[in-house]
């Protein structure tokens, strides 16, 4: 029976070699004794325990102790000095630490946010070769750059262009899904895709198999979210699910479940059905006009995207139908990995990121970090001047340079590490507590956990340690010990200029940030408060769900009008904020030859203007008694300008409406409506024609003006009414106010984010100025005493400090104005309706800054100047 080998190995590894023999001997002897009285297992266990008893410091191998290589006492000594200094200058040191930590936290959060935005669609194994083909064409008479293209495009290109390795189309067909009548719900994110999908993109499989999963008609792949929704218990794979839209009803077989899409992809689907099903459900779908399809291609390795554009156009010219090419469509290749930040086409899957805004935020984060670093360097260098005496004394007592250098490095390493730790704590706090409120969702911090980031972090740490330890080190080498101790001369006084210029940079940057934030905030507010020309509050719309609804809406309208809280009901072809203001051709009798005039159109009934609260500028509104059903139009101001008319009311006009066939409506312009913003304020108002519509093609929404009251009860009553009218479909209610404000979500968020970080920048700068002034007040306390004795008043003494700081502040601020003015104007160009940059903003900000400065340092300066000179001069 042998004692356990591992225990011996551990002991040998731990203990000094010369002790091995006696210890192991004793252990084994004990083991053998135990074997006599005990069971073998117990003896072995006891051996382990006995072994552990020998793992004590006195037996430890000498060479394996790191502490003994570093000189512990030196280390401790340095730490102690650092700690004493810290305590002595508690407020300054704290200011320093908090400032750096805050700046770091701000930077880290912005960095994470920006990196997340940049990470979209970068993770596919073939990312570099994936492209989307998007179209620039005339749609409904309007030139658009859209994310979509047409269905037959990809089969044609794949056949004619060998450089295309694989391709896949996505066709959106929203419908109702259900497994039993109880869980029927409308799903908007249903897409019909080619079976080649998974050759292009690797979406993660959760269940089932991706092989042949979309090859046959009526196969369907669900995301986990949808699978759990319809199959809450057990697996979805192999089961069937019903799909119903306004034309047909089919049973699909679930062949696979994929993981929910990650947040950082431009795709936004929840259900994927096979293209084969499309062929059965809509045999006519394979045409060049409708429906549109998202088209993705995988190019062969080494193929240049630039040659492809030409190639595509050539193939189309030769093979696409002529009527299609008449509109001169163009097709462009977009790198999939660039879509999120760089593509802002119509009909994108989801709201695109904003490259400029990301860059802006990255820049802000960088600025905040710079401010914080400047602070830190400033305060540390200022403090180390104070320490020249200490340095001189220690050196004359025999401390060698290396010892001093070690001390500075240790101190700066420790304080920066502390700031980093505090910074990370702040990041988690800010992210989970504050940003949750501001953005609604916290920033993805994944990127902080990557090797690359940690590498940069360490580099940054080393650099900042070098910089902050470098300056005092420079003092060590520069100053002769005798000089340092002497009372008359302290080196480093002159570096005041260096610090002043750094503060200047800080002021410049902070002022720039404050101004930028204000502009973003004001613009956001301006957009939200801008009168859209109609009353958005208490205005809701019910979507008509199927043919039954659109044909019989009048029944529902009557029902609703009888509800006590309903002030008015009107039907319309679409609502502000949605697309569907179709461009229809118009013909003016002035100019019968022109056939390229189109206008956005809105079909309504007589009650529409009243319900929306739109006012008429000239002429009259629709009137049932005057037979306006076919022969009357309302125009907006842009439409009048578009037609070039001076006196529009009473003129003849022909509008062509597509209701399955072309339907020409000849009529008169009866009035001009006042402002009606039916799209976002990014753009000028487009020409719009409003006509009375009775055809069920364009009766998609019932708009309801509600009286003020309990909104929940009102919604319930509306839903009940709708369910009675059409029990088969779910009820969809849209709040116009919400719909309109969703345009400006991005501005709102950007404003809030920027406000938050500008606030941080202000805080940090404030801390920095506070630190520096308190430092100089401390050093000049004797000077103040002497000045007082010689007759200086308190005001003069206060002025002494304020003057210098205010001067820097004012100069820094004013110098930031031109830069800000240029950049802000540039940004405001994005909006058709924007605020003016008035000088008021600048002056107000400057005043605010001055006030802030006085509030920050005022009390301290006041206290210093009221100190009793006897006391301050007597102090050593």
């Amino acid at each position, binding site marked *: 029976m042998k004692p356990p080998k591992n225990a011996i190995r551990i002991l040998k590894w731990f203990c000094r070699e010369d002790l091995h023999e*006696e*210890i192991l*001997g*004793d252990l084994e002897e004990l083991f053998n004794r135990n074997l006599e009285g005990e069971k073998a297992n117990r003896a072995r266990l006891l051996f382990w325990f006995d072994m552990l*008893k*020998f*793992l*004590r410091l006195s037996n430890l191998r000498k060479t394996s102790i790191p502490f003994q290589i570093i000189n512990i006492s030196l280390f401790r000594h340095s730490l102690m000095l650092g700690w004493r200094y810290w305590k002595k200058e508690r407020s300054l040191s704290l200011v320093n630490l908090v400032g750096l930590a805050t700046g770091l936290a701000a930077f880290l959060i912005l960095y994470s946010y920006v990196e997340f935005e940049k990470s979209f669609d970068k993770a596919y194994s073939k990312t570099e070769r994936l492209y989307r083909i998007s179209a620039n064409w005339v749609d409904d008479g309007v030139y658009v750059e859209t994310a979509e293209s047409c269905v037959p495009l990809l089969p044609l290109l794949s056949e004619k262009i060998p450089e295309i390795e694989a391709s896949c189309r996505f066709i959106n067909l929203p419908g109702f899904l259900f497994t039993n009548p109880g869980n029927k719900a409308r799903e908007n994110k249903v897409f019909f895709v080619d079976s080649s999908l998974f050759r292009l993109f690797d979406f993660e499989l959760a269940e089932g198999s991706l092989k042949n999963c979309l090859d046959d008609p009526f196969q369907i792949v669900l995301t986990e979210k949808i699978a759990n929704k319809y199959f809450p218990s057990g697996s979805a794979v192999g089961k069937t699910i019903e799909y119903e839209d306004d034309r047909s009803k089919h049973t699909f077989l679930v062949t696979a479940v994929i993981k929910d899409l990650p947040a950082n992809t431009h795709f936004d689907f929840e259900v994927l059905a096979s293209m084969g099903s499309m062929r059965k459900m809509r045999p006519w779908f394979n045409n060049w006009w409708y429906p549109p399809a998202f088209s993705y291609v995988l190019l062969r390795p080494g193929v240049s995207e630039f040659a492809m554009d030409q190639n595509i156009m050539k193939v189309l010219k030769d093979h696409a139908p002529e009527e299609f090419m008449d509109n001169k469509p163009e097709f462009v290749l977009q790198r999939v990995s660039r879509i999120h930040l760089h593509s802002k086409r119509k009909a994108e899957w989801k709201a695109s990121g904003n490259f400029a805004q990301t860059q802006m935020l990255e820049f802000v984060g960088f600025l905040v970090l710079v401010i914080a670093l400047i602070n830190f360097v400033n305060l540390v260098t200022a403090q180390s001047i104070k320490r020249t005496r200490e340095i001189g004394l220690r050196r004359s007592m025999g401390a060698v340079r290396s010892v001093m250098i070690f001390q500075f490095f240790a101190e700066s390493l420790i304080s920066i590490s502390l700031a980093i730790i505090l910074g990370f704590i702040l990041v988690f706090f800010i992210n989970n507590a504050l940003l949750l409120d501001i953005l609604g969702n916290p920033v993805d911090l994944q990127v902080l956990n990557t090797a690359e980031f940690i590498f940069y972090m360490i580099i940054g740490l080393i650099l900042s340690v070098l910089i902050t330890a470098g300056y005092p080190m420079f003092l060590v080498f520069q100053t002769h010990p005798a000089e340092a101790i002497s009372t008359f001369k302290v080196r480093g006084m002159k570096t005041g200029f260096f610090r002043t210029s750094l503060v200047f940079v800080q002021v410049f940057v902070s002022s720039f940030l404050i101004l930028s934030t204000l502009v973003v905030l004001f613009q956001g507010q301006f957009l939200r408060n801008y009168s859209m020309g109609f009353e958005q509050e208490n205005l809701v719309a019910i979507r008509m769900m199927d043919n039954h609804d659109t044909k019989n809406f009048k029944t529902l309208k009557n029902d609703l009008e009888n509800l006590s809280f309903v002030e008015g009901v009107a039907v319309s072809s679409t609502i502000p904020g949605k697309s569907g203001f179709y461009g229809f051709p118009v013909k003016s009798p002035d100019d019968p030859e022109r056939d390229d005039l189109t206008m956005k159109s809105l079909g309504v009934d007589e009650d529409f203007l009243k319900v929306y609260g739109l006012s008429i500028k000239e002429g009259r509104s629709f009137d049932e008694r005057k037979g306006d059903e076919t022969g009357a139009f309302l125009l907006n101001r842009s439409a009048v300008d578009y037609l070039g008319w001076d006196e529009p009311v009473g003129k003849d006009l022909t509008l062509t409406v597509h209701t399955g066939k072309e339907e020409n409506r000849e009529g008169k312009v009866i009035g001009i409506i006042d402002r009606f913003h039916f799209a976002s304020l990014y753009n000028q108002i487009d020409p719009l024609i409003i006509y009375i519509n009775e055809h069920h093609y364009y009766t998609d929404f019932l708009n309801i003006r509600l009286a003020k009251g309990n909104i929940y009860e009102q919604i319930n009553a509306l839903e009940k009414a709708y369910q009675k009218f059409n029990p088969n479909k779910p009820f969809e209610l849209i709040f116009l106010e919400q719909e309109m404000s969703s345009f400006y979500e991005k501005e709102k968020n950007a404003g809030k984010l920027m406000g938050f970080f500008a606030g941080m920048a202000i805080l940090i700068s404030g801390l920095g100025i506070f630190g520096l002034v308190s430092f100089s007040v401390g050093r000049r306390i004797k000077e103040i005493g002497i000045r007082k004795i010689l007759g200086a008043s308190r005001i003069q003494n206060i002025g002494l400090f304020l003057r210098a700081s205010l001067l820097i502040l004012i100069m820094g601020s004013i110098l930031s104005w031109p830069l800000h003015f240029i950049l802000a104007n540039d940004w405001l160009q994005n909006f058709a309706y924007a605020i003016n940059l008035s000088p008021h903003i600048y002056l107000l900000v400057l005043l605010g800054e001055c006030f802030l400065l006085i509030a920050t340092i005022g009390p301290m300066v006041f206290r210093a100047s009221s100190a009793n000179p006897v006391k301050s001069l007597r102090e050593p």
Partner: protein
Amino acid sequence: MKGTFLGELEELALLTTAILDGEGYGISIVEEIRLQTGRKVNIGALHTVLRRLEKKGLVGSSLGGATKERGGRRKRLFYVTSAGKEMIRQTYETRQRLYQQIPNMAMVIA
């Protein structure tokens, strides 16, 4: 000043080593202490104590016979040096002197 004072365990180990008269090594000393005083001494601690005593010059050691139950390893046998003997004597005398000055105890001990 090193070596002037003895810790409690040190004293115990030194006395036991003296009793065992050159035959003392880790286990036998632990065993002897247990027999004499009923106290279970940690073997690891004892090794350290013995080494400390050796450093103070109170005990000496040599590597002795290997036995089969030790896996062929030799034991370190400790003996008390003359400094050690002197130490024992001094300690004893100090104790004696102190005990006798305790008013009520004097009778009992003498």
